[in-house]
Each structure stands twice: as C-alpha cells, then as structure tokens.
C-alpha cells in the first residue's frame, strides 16, 4: 500500500467511524423517543457488556477457547468477585491485572 493509499484509508476509516457515533446525537436529541424504544435502548448497555465480556474472556485471541489453558477464564473469576464485592473499577482492574501477571509468569 502506497503512502497516498494509506492516507486515503485513514481518512475513509475516520469518516465511517465518526458518523455512527455523531449522527444519532446530532439528529435525535430534538425528538422524544417513544417509551418502548427507550426501554429497548436501556438494554443496550447490559447486552453490549455481556458480549464484550464473553468475547474478551472466552475468545481472547480472536477464536473461542474454553480450555483450562485459557488464562483469561481463571483471571475472570477473582475479578468478578471483587467487582461484585467492592463495586470499584480500580480494585477490579488491580486484581484482574495482578492475577493475570501471576498466571502468566508462574502458572499457565
């Protein structure tokens, strides 16, 4: 890919990643959504985070890995417990990262 191609690619990608983020806020804030739509939208956040968690823990390398060698599954358990107990992003991250570092260096 030539230098020019790369710049075209960068501008193209920036346009298609900007539009879906900006357009809904730009266009819809003047309208009142009907109740059922608001309710449906209220499920988007839990749904997305359910998917993202599943993908990042069960398919960390881009393919599904349900084996005991998948460190992400082991690190998931203490992190979930700490998240529920402390409800703190900081402690969840700390426990997750430290667990992962220990697993990587000493166990799996």
């Amino acid at each position, binding site marked *: *890919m030539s*230098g020019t*191609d*790369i710049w*075209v*690619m*960068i*501008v*193209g*990608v920036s346009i*298609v*990643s*900007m539009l*879906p*983020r*900006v357009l*809904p*806020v*730009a266009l*819809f*804030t*003047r309208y009142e959504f009907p109740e059922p739509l*608001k*309710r*449906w939208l209220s*499920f*988007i*956040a*839990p*749904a*997305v*985070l*359910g*998917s*993202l*968690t*599943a*993908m*990042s*823990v069960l*398919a960390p390398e*881009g*393919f599904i890995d349900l084996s005991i060698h998948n460190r992400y599954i082991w*690190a*998931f358990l203490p*992190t*979930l417990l700490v*998240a*529920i107990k402390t*409800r703190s*992003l*900081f402690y*969840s*991250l700390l426990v*997750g*990262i430290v667990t*992962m*570092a*220990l697993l*990587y260096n000493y166990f799996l």
Partner: protein
Amino acid sequence: MQKQELRQGINDSVPIILGYLPLGLAFGVLANEVGMSIIQATVMSFLCFTGAGQYIAIGVMQAGGAVFTIIMANVLVNLRYLLFSTSMVPYLKGRVPTALGSFLSYGLTDETYAVAMKRYQDHSPTVSYIAGLNLSSHIGWVASTLLGAILGGYMSNTERLGLGFALPAMYICLLVFMIKRKSDVFVALSSALLCLVVGYFLPATMGNLFNIIIATVVAASLGMLFNERD
C-alpha cells in the same frame, strides 16, 4: 466549564487509559511493521479512535488487501456505535447542547460509553464530564500509539505485566455496574451466549465484531419480553 465535573471525567478515564496503553502500544508497533510511518499511525489513532477497526486495518494491510476492504470492514465494526450513541440520546436530551454533544460523541468507544452510562445512573450528564472522560481517553489512545510507533521493536512484552487483562477486567466490572434489574441479567447472559454462538457458526463475524451487534440487538429485544416496571 465545571471544574469538578471535568476533574471527575478525567479521573474516570484513568482505568480506560490503563486498558488502552497496551493496545495502543501494540497498534503503534504493528502499524510500523506493515509500513505506516510514525505520523500515519499517530494520525490514524487521532482521527479514527477505533481499536478494533484499526487492528482490522493492520490485518488487511498485512494480507495485501485493498483500502476499500478496510473501509467496508470498518463500516461493520463501527455500526455498534449507532446503538451506543442512540441509547445515550435520552440522557443527553435537554442537558447537553446538541452541537457540543455531537462533537464530543467523536470520543465514544466501548469503554467511554460504559463508564458514562454508569455515571448517568445517578448523575446528570454535563459537557465538562463528557469532555474530561472522552478527550483524556482519546489523548491516552493517541499517546500510547505514538509511544508504540517510536519504540517499535524495543518494546518489552506487556503481557508479562498482566496488562492484557486490563480491558477484560474493565468490561467485567462495568457489566456488574450495568445490572440493576433481573431483566438485565437475562439480557447480558443471552447476549454473551448469542455472540459466542454466532461467532462459532459464522467465524467471519468474530473478526469484524458483527457477532456483537447481532447479539446485542437480539438480546435487547428479548429483554422486552420482561414486563417488570423499574
């Protein structure tokens, strides 16, 4: 500008930046390897701010693919932002001016979205908060890319430091925050299962994250079956 809100936004972006650090570094390194200059890699992170989309670009470039392929793949990957952005509208309405809200939505990512939605559970959105959160996350992404592109091969293995688990840990915690109703548990679990099933049977969707979009739309619709009042 409300100083307190701005500061809160910046504080809330710290875990996000920690998660972006290894990803941005790696992007900078890989971008260099497939022939992007330091400036191109950094500008790409500044203009695009889409982790998954940028990694796809690298993958396609590595395989000798076309610019058009990269852009089309990014259309798919970024479609989920339509859902995020739309689901924020009811919160922003009447509290954040449309022009500023739209401008700051450029900084919407999986992570800034989830953190902001958590905040809006008990605080009204403000321009200062969104600016603090989105802009500093954006700066973190750009800075870690620049660092990766400069350091290139000299980078030590960030996996050893456990940083590879920063984003998963963040998703896990934000997921816990998002669960308020029984129906939320059901929706989150259905979505998790669906995205794996779809990804298993249509492996291509794992690459462009389309499985997440399908799972999200279906799971949110399943949530409508619950008729509890919250």
